């Protein structure tokens, strides 16, 4: 009840979540199983198994792997273990029985099959008073931020379900996101952008960031990228509080935004069916892709940064390869996906109105049927996979749902990078180190390895200028002049011949090399050529 008291000063429904969480905690403690949503229990009775194909799984996973009732799935011998381990590493996916699709398995069944700690991660929060909710997870997946459109903002440690703060900003909340740690978060309100700390105290009001629609935080650059209603893409360096870049995209309202985690490029979806890629240092988009015939509704980029999923008003979901800018697959969803998100292990979550679908292996070959499917009580408003957890958080019109998606999160975390179990001291030290390793915003480009490359353009320029200044090229190789032979074979023509022989030697070596490489690349034609060689030219006259 303490929680209730501390946050009772907030307006109206401020205490809603607190009460809810309290109830959750009690239920979890007493009953020993998390409260399950029974709405999806239509397929109750079908068996559900979790197959472990990895030896060293992490504690953070949804938990107990073996179903005792089906011992044949558990490898008995060492050889079996080995084969199982060699298939994939760290994969733990849902597998149905024969002729049973995994998408028909209800969340309740999954929660029932897993251990208590994991099943506690399946929960729902019914918050129907402050409208559809946006949400954000911290980078280590420990903390959750919820923001209702009607002003309800709540931050909580969702593992322990302890509330950090709960406020009502008394304004429309369009989007919100955690900053680098769980101590600060940014909320885009009706007019301006606000920064709060984890006690709900307003730290900053950024009036230059006007009518922000979507926000993304770039963790390594400490940049908060915001996309506004008026078509402005703005970058705020939160470490120094400076506005790094303001770009007018000239593309109207920006409602779809995603970041590429591998190179910190911002992807924006436009109403003209294009997706544009931005960096703060360029005034024009780095890439403009025509993805849909209608407007783009949602964009998502996977963790490796090589695949992008887009969904449009034409009800299609396209998967693009960002390395070649080519489309790999396209799916036709029943209502079109309004929200997209990639999990750490490459599962693609798509929300079509009140139905949430999760697709597996989208980059390889997407199956016809989703991997996991779940229906919400009301249309979804935001969708995020929780890092390092097999959890998909969905904010909808009547609250928030935390769904179990086996195999979604990365089981192995780097404790020096993102530690879900870090202490306060560790967090503070990490913060200092992260600030020291902050990457300048100018370095955001399509190729993240650009810094490691020599700037050839200015290198050549400098070389040219130096040659001009000196009057000769100091690095030029002086042309070969053949030595005069003392005895014979030293005529002028002979010497010229020798010089020419040497002159083309380098080029010849290159050509030889490339030919050899070609020959290696195509071993098949040489085989085919063998029978042709033993045939003579006269053979064609044979009747």
């Amino acid at each position, binding site marked *: 009840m303490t929680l209730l008291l501390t946050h009772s000063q907030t307006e109206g429904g401020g205490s809603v979540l607190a009460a809810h969480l309290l109830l959750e905690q009690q239920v979890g403690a007493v009953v020993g199983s998390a409260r399950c949503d029974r709405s999806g229990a239509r397929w109750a009775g079908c068996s559900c198994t979790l197959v472990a194909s990895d030896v060293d799984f992490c504690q953070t996973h949804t938990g107990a792997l073996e179903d005792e009732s089906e011992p044949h799935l558990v490898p008995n011998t060492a050889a079996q273990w080995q084969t199982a381990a060699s298939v994939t590493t760290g994969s733990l996916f849902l597998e149905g029985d024969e002729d049973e*699709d995994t998408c028909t398995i209800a969340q309740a069944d999954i929660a029932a099959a897993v251990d208590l700690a994991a099943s506690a991660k399946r929960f729902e929060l019914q918050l129907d008073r402050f409208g559809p909710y946006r949400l954000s997870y911290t980078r280590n997946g420990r903390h959750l931020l919820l923001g209702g459109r009607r002003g309800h903002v709540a931050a909580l440690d969702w593992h322990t379900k302890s509330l950090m703060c709960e406020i009502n900003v008394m304004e429309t909340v369009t989007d919100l996101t955690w900053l680098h740690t769980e101590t600060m978060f940014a909320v885009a309100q009706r007019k301006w952008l606000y920064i709060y700390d984890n006690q709900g105290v307003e730290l900053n009001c950024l009036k230059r960031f006007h009518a922000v629609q979507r926000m993304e935080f770039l963790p390594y650059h400490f940049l908060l990228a915001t996309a506004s209603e008026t078509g402005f893409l703005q970058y705020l360096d939160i470490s120094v509080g400076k506005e790094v870049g303001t770009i007018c995209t000239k593309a109207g309202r920006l409602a779809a935004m995603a970041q590429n985690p591998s190179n910190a490029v911002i992807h924006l979806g436009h109403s*003209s*069916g*294009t997706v544009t890629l931005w960096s703060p*240092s*360029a005034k*024009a*988009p*780095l*890439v*403009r*892709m*025509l*993805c849909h*015939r*209608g407007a783009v509704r949602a964009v998502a980029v996977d963790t490796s940064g090589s695949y992008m999923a887009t969904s449009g*008003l034409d*009800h299609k979901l*396209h998967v693009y390869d960002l390395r070649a*800018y*080519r*489309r*790999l*697959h*396209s799916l*036709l*969803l*029943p*209502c079109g996906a309004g929200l997209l998100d990639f999990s750490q292990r490459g599962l693609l979550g798509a929300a*079509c*109105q*009140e*139905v949430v*679908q999760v697709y597996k292996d989208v980059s390889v070959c*997407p199956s*016809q*049927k*989703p991997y996991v*499917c779940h*229906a919400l009580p009301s249309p979804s408003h935001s969708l995020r996979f929780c890092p390092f957890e097999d959890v998909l958080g969905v904010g909808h019109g009547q609250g928030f749902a935390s769904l179990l998606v086996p195999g979604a999160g990365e089981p192995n975390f780097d404790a020096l990078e993102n530690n879900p179990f870090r202490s306060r001291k560790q967090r503070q030290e990490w913060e200092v180190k992260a600030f020291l390793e902050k990457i*300048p915003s*100018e*370095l*955001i480009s399509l190729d993240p390895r*650009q*810094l*490691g*490359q*020599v*700037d*050839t353009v*200015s290198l050549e320029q*400098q070389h040219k200028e130096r040659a001009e200044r000196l009057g000769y090229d100091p690095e030029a190789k002086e042309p070969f002049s053949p030595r005069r032979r003392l005895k014979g074979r030293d005529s002028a023509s002979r010497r010229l011949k020798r010089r020419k022989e040497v002159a083309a030697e380098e080029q010849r070596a290159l050509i030889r090399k490339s030919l050899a490489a070609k020959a290696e690349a195509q071993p098949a034609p040489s085989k*085919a050529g063998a*029978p042709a060689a*033993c*045939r003579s030219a*006269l*053979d064609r006259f*044979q009747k």
Partner: protein
Amino acid sequence: MAAVEEEDPCGRELALSEEDEVEEVDQEGAAKKHRQLVDALTALVGGKRRRAVERTEASAQISEFDVGGGGDKVQLSELLQPVSASPALRPIQKQLKKAQQKKATEIPLSKEETERVVREAAYTQTAEALNKWDPVVKKNRRAEQLVFPLQQESMTIVPIEEVMSGWQARTPLEQEIFSLLHKTQQPVKDPLLTPQEKISLKAMSLEEAKLRRMELQRARALQSYYEAKARRERKVKSKKFHKMLRKGKSRKVLQEFETLRKCNPEAALEQLEKIEKARIEERMSLKHQNKGRWAKSTVIMAKYDLQARQAMQEQLARNKELTQKVCPASESEEEEAGDNPEAEKDLVPDVVNERHIGMDSSNPWMLGRTPAESKEEPNVPAEDSGESEGEGEELLMANEKDLLQESDGQWQSLKHQRGSAGLQGPSKEEGPADAPPSPPSREQPFLSEKLKRVRTLEDLEEDLEPEAIPQEDEMLQPKEAQPSQSVGAEPPLQPQAGKSKKSAKHQALIDLETVLAGAPYPTQCPLVPAVVQDELESGISQRQVIQEAFASDNVIDDFLKEKREAEEASKPKAIDLVLPGWGEWGGVGLQPSKKKKKRFLIKPAPGPPRKDRHLPHVLLNEQRNILAAAHQVNHLPFPFENSQQFERSIQVPVGSTWNTQRAFQQLTAPRVITQPGQIIHPITAEDANLNRQGDRSTAKVGQKPDLELSLPPRQPRPPHISKKKDR
């Protein structure tokens, strides 16, 4: 001059004061005045010309020094004329003459010039001194690691004598031993080594050994060069060259002999013997007598030709000269010697040299042939054998040729056989069923010509299409065809498109519509949004609704337009230098001619191809990120030669996580290591071993190797040795 100038104004003042009395003075006075006036005026004008002082009136006191006639120079000789008369003054006269002939000493250089000269000299000297340091500096700069202080004190074992300095023999036994040691010159206390050992230790340090080795190497090199030169000279075919060489040598020998005779008679005698030997040789040979081909011909010519006669005479003179006994013997002997050759010649009959018929043929020396001739005989069979060998070789060659021809024939026959087999094998005996790999079985029928057409055009097309079409598909939509085929829900469009012509395929590659129009396959989901369910119930097709909604939106055209604009903007622009009306008629309605336009339109080189030229739905920004470029490396650090090398080197992680401990330590080793508490003195010549190098050079100058002395002085030095010295 200064004094005169000072006087002048006084004169002027005087003149001015006397101007009033001009009328009263008589004629004489007027003339004087006039002169004074003129003087004053000239002074006023500022002319510095001085009139020669004239003596106007005679005076008794004429200075003996004033010779008068300022223009005439007094000659010394004129002055001395009276002196020359007396013979006692002659030496003085001579001295004076000498002094007259001597040139005046040059003016010493001005201060600036002397300073400049000194400066230049100082500069060259210091530069020389500093240049010595260049390699040291370079070496230290390139060193991966420097440990300071540079001159590390080597870990020396403290000699026992130092330890035992305070020790003395006390007991009788000790004293006895010491006395023994003293007797045998063994070291007792102070130096623990015997003098011999010491000398041997001192004899050769490493540096000296190195120097010695270098010198030896040099000597060897020089020797080899000398040998090579000698060999080369020996091989020279020019007779003239050798003649000159020989003459030179003989002249030298003679000169030496002359000198020897004067200073060292014994050595001269030895030399004489050598000359004697030459004489004997000359007498043995008929080289300079009239027996040779040339001599005979010249003898014939000598009757008519004076030159030939002279040459003949010369030849004979040479012969005489050579056959003369050089030794300073008695005159009688000389006479004898003078007659000798002819007498000897007469004495030895020709018969001696002729071959004796009845002699034993087995003794080659008795055959009357020279050994060279006798040598030839055994050569004959050898030559024969050589010939036979040659013949054998020829035979062999012929055999080989035959063999080759045979083998050729065989090979050809084999080839024929094989060819026929190759043709028949797969076609008849084995059949195409046996050869599943398509290329050989497919190519066979192309080449074998038969009356019946083996394959028709249709067949060809059928064969080719499965290859060509999938490629196109892959290019267009990679992997898109696969799932559709596997699923089979929708019949793929590509096969139909594939049947069309090539141009159509090419268009398809570029056409944006087709790129976008990849057929999506619908998903089957157990849960469907409520809206869709309603629609399904009501029966309105979603597709229709969407198409209606976006019928007006011409998204693709907009994008294409945008892309075209971007492409245009990125193209380098042509410079138009056409001046209308220049060289032709101009005015309203007149356009410059096409020829002119073509000539004055400078077309830039086409830029690099756009990266998105094969991606119709993508517009890539090709502008360079200047802000990021500021952080990039824009010059190659020293040891790297190209950028790839450098990039690869900085890609290598340095951390201990990715490296072994040893590698990590090596990678992160500091460039400079200093030891705490050690004083780092500035580098000295000793540290850098500069002094020793200097010593070496001086040593070389003082003491040359023997071989060098024996070499002719004009022989050019081998280049690389001189280079070494430069270093």
